[in-house]
């Protein structure tokens, strides 16, 4: 018998083993290939921001970042704080953020309560309709609201002017701070609802039980149970959407910029693209750093609050027993009418006005007589304008390349995050989350400076190029995509990969043959969402725009600003159709694959 327990073992004296290695270190030697993705992620996110931060502390004779005679200076910040032009955007931004959050979250909580907690008829259909605008590009929505709220000819103002005592122009003004705030609030509703609904749902079970057991009054139940339970969840949504609103660009740009109503993000843009004179890079630089801090710091705090990014998957939720509140009589119909009214006003009316405008030769209030003027010239113009083909090609190239690169990097990131953890895993966990706090306009400015700097030193021709735009889109989408692929890969037990490793398959074979095919629904989903996002993104595309990299969203924005409303409406509808189509296709693909793999 070979008896060799630890105590009785008769092994010859070993040389003393080295101090124990940390498990992750010892393992990481064999996977040099994998953390390339981690390095890429870190470089992609950090380099532009470092350039931005560094150049904010320099000035040069030419005014260009790192231009001739560049030296360290605080002049940019001094200008930001002494220049009177900053006061307006700061005040506007605060009103805009607080106001749109109040509108967006109150509507979301109200709708979530009606849908999750009551016996409202047609709940599921209404929920889908409220969430649907998530697939509508915000630049398009902005144009629609611009048409509806136009002080002279806007449909809503025309209707309001029918009230005795109300005279035009107005009373509402599309370009006012109030209008852009409320419209941005509407923009926040679909995603807020997706985040708030599980919070409301998870509270219901505990609430019912507590009510039964203690017999506490309605007010006590609300203050002692409901709010403390929902508090953390709602706070998380609040912080996340605060960051969204703080960096919002599309609505303020489409509605407010021409009318002189600026928030932080659009003030940066107009410093770079002034109506007259040369771009003021120094001012844009200093403001960008401030806006970055304004959005990034809450986002990091939010990350610390909710912990690991997997926990973000509140949307899955646990299955609680639903004990809906039975709505009766008048209350039921009042709630139903209110919800249908919201859907009509916020979801259907903007689409309708776009459709109407796209088939009218000039702005006309919808009427029977105007029906006779219906024509399709705008659509014909869209397809026959000489630059149309190159714009569409640029848009598709941007969407396809950005989505493909992002999916590759995100999949590798998820692998590092889930399978290896360690330093890069932790870093990617932070990045996957915190990148939401990098405002698009700030990233645009950073990449602009990066391209100006590299072009002046290495003559790469990055400025205004397609590759620069693709790079920017990759960075913008990396966080969200990594979360989607991480959720997908999290469903695949690591044993499936280990089994392939034991069969002798190297890392890339394992990913290619086992992991990627199994998580293909998640990757397809991430790909299509990135594609749709790249198509509808205005912020980055307009900041980095040049004649060489013009995309549909920029074309749309330009035509709107030039007053070519018909073509803008037609183009906007087409863009919306593609975006909605892609999103629906992603859903179909996902559910199809899920069924197949049981």
């Amino acid at each position: 018998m070979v008896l060799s327990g630890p105590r009785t073992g008769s092994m010859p004296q070993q040389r003393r083993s080295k101090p124990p290695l940390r498990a992750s270190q010892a393992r990481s030697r064999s996977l040099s290939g994998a953390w390339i993705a981690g390095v890429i992620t870190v470089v992609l996110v950090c380099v532009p921001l470092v350039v931005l931060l560094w150049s904010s502390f320099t000035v040069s004779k030419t005014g260009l970042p790192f231009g001739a005679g560049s030296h360290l200076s605080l002049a940019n910040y001094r200008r930001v704080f002494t220049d009177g032009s900053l006061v307006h955007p700061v005040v506007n931004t605060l009103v805009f953020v607080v106001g749109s959050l109040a509108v967006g979250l109150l509507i979301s909580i109200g709708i979530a309560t009606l849908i999750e907690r009551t016996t409202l008829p047609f709940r599921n259909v209404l929920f889908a309709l409220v969430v649907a605008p998530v697939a509508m590009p915000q630049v398009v929505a902005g144009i629609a609201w611009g048409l509806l709220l136009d002080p002279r000819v806007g449909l809503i103002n025309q209707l309001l002017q029918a009230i005795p005592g109300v005279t035009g122009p107005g009373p509402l003004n599309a370009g006012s701070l109030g209008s852009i705030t409320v419209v941005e609030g509407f923009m926040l509703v679909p995603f807020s609802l997706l985040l708030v609904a599980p919070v409301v749902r998870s509270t219901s079970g505990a609430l019912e039980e507590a009510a039964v057991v203690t017999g506490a009054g309605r007010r006590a139940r609300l203050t002692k149970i409901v709010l403390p339970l929902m508090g953390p969840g709602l706070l998380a949504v609040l912080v996340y959407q605060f960051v969204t609103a703080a960096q919002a660009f599309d609505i303020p740009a489409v509605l407010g910029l021409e009318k002189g109503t600026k928030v932080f993000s659009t003030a940066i843009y107009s410093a770079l693209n002034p109506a007259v004179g040369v771009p003021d890079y120094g001012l844009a630089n200093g403001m960008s750093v401030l806006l970055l801090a304004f959005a990034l710091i809450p986002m990091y705090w939010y990350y610390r609050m909710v912990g690991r990014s997997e926990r973000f998957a509140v949307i899955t939720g646990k299955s609680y027993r639903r004990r809906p509140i039975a709505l009766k009589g008048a209350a039921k119909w009042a709630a139903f009418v209110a919800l249908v009214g919201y859907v009509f006003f916020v979801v259907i009316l903007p689409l309708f006005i776009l459709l109407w405008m796209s088939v009218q030769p000039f702005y006309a209030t919808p009427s029977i007589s105007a029906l006779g003027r219906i024509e399709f010239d705008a659509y014909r113009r869209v397809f026959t304008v000489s630059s149309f083909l190159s714009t569409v090609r640029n848009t598709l190239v941007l969407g396809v390349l950005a989505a493909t690169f992002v999916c590759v990097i995100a999949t590798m990131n998820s692998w590092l995050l889930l399978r290896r953890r360690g330093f890069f895993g932790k870093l990617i966990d932070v990045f996957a989350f915190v990148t939401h706090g990098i405002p698009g306009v700030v990233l645009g400015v950073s990449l602009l400076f990066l391209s100006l700097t590299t072009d002046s030193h290495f003559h790469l021709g990055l400025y205004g190029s397609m590759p620069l735009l693709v790079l920017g889109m990759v960075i913008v989408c990396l966080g969200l995509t990594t979360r989607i692929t991480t959720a997908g890969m999290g469903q695949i037990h690591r044993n499936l990969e280990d089994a392939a490793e034991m069969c002798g398959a190297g890392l890339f074979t394992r990913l290619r043959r086992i992991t990627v095919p199994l998580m293909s629904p998640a990757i397809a989903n991430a790909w299509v969402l990135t594609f749709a996002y790249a198509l509808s993104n205005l912020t980055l595309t307009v900041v980095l725009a040049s004649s060489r990299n013009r995309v549909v969203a920029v074309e749309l924005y330009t035509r709107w600003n030039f007053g070519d409303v018909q073509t803008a409406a037609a183009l906007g509808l087409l863009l919306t159709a593609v975006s909605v189509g892609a999103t629906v296709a992603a859903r179909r693909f996902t559910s199809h694959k899920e069924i197949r793999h049981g």
Partner: protein
Amino acid sequence: MKDVVLSRVEKTYSATSGGDVAAVRGIDLSITAGEFFVLLGASGSGKTTLLRCIAGLESITGGEIRIGSTVVASGSKVVPAVRRNIGMVFQDYAIWPHMTVGENVEFALRHARSGSLKGEAAKKRVREVLDVVGLGDLVNRGATYLSGGQQQRVALARAVVAKPDVLLLDEPLSNLDARLRALMRKELRRITTELGVTAIYVTHDQIEALVMADRIAVMRNGEVLQVGSPQEIYRTPADLFVGEFVGEANMIGGRVAATVPSPAGCDPEQRFVTVQTRLGTLTALASGDVSQGHDVWLLIRPESLHVCHDASAPISPGWNAVTGLVRRADFAGAHTELTVEVDGVELRAQAHAFDAMSVGSPVTLTVGAQWVVALTERAATPQAATTRDATIYAERSH
């Protein structure tokens, strides 16, 4: 077919909250070529971690692992899992759901360390191995359309198709129902013998270990407590924990009175002692270095107690006998489980299924001295002690 030698293998995880967790603490084992070796332990004993260290899926933090003449892991040197030529069967089978049975098995062949096979040769080999595990007809079946037992066989076929030097099995039967498990134990043994591979098998099921193993290593808290054949482990466990882990046991506390010569009919090479207990003086086989004056536990397996109704029947020389009252009689099919109270101590015994055992009736329990083992408590923890009968524990402190 190669041997596997572990020398002072250690695996320590660095916990994020600070402080390290030792999963495997300095393990020495030598597993002979062609042997079916079982690592037996409760969950958390470090057996799966040890297996994954051998596989190369975990790095070791100290010591050395050798397979054949190759050192695959020691301090600075690590042979990655993909180059160790090891086959592995996972607890949940880890069958790739997007491939057919044939593709699952062929994958292993294509990436094999021992030279990959392709085309017709590969197809032939896949068929061959699937025939061995009895799935020859299911080559083109999608992997998700298999029962648990079939998935288990695919996992096995995949693990052995490339003729690995060592086969590792991580609780491969724990997800099967009881009947299928019993069948697969024999099947697994047949297949590994047929393939002539060194097998290391992890389980928490002591029956599985006893039925299948050539040798067993019992593990607890990252340490090996005893290595031996199933018979050795069961009959002469090294300590209290092993004794209780591998099967049902009566434990009686006592103190060694004297060393005595082997009783008639017992192995004269073995050492016997008399032990003072609450039930009187009993003769027992001495385990390890047990000697006069030591506090010991006497281990008696319920099935080795003979049950007599006749108190006046003669007692064979070298046998122990105690008399008590039947407290419970539970019919269990093949036998009846008895609980007999002897001087305030409850002993479990087995009677023939159809013996009429009435609760309250007196019985005599006899047992040969070689079936009573005197153990030290060496590796027992307070937790293990509290699971024992409190009255016995109290008796010991007198």
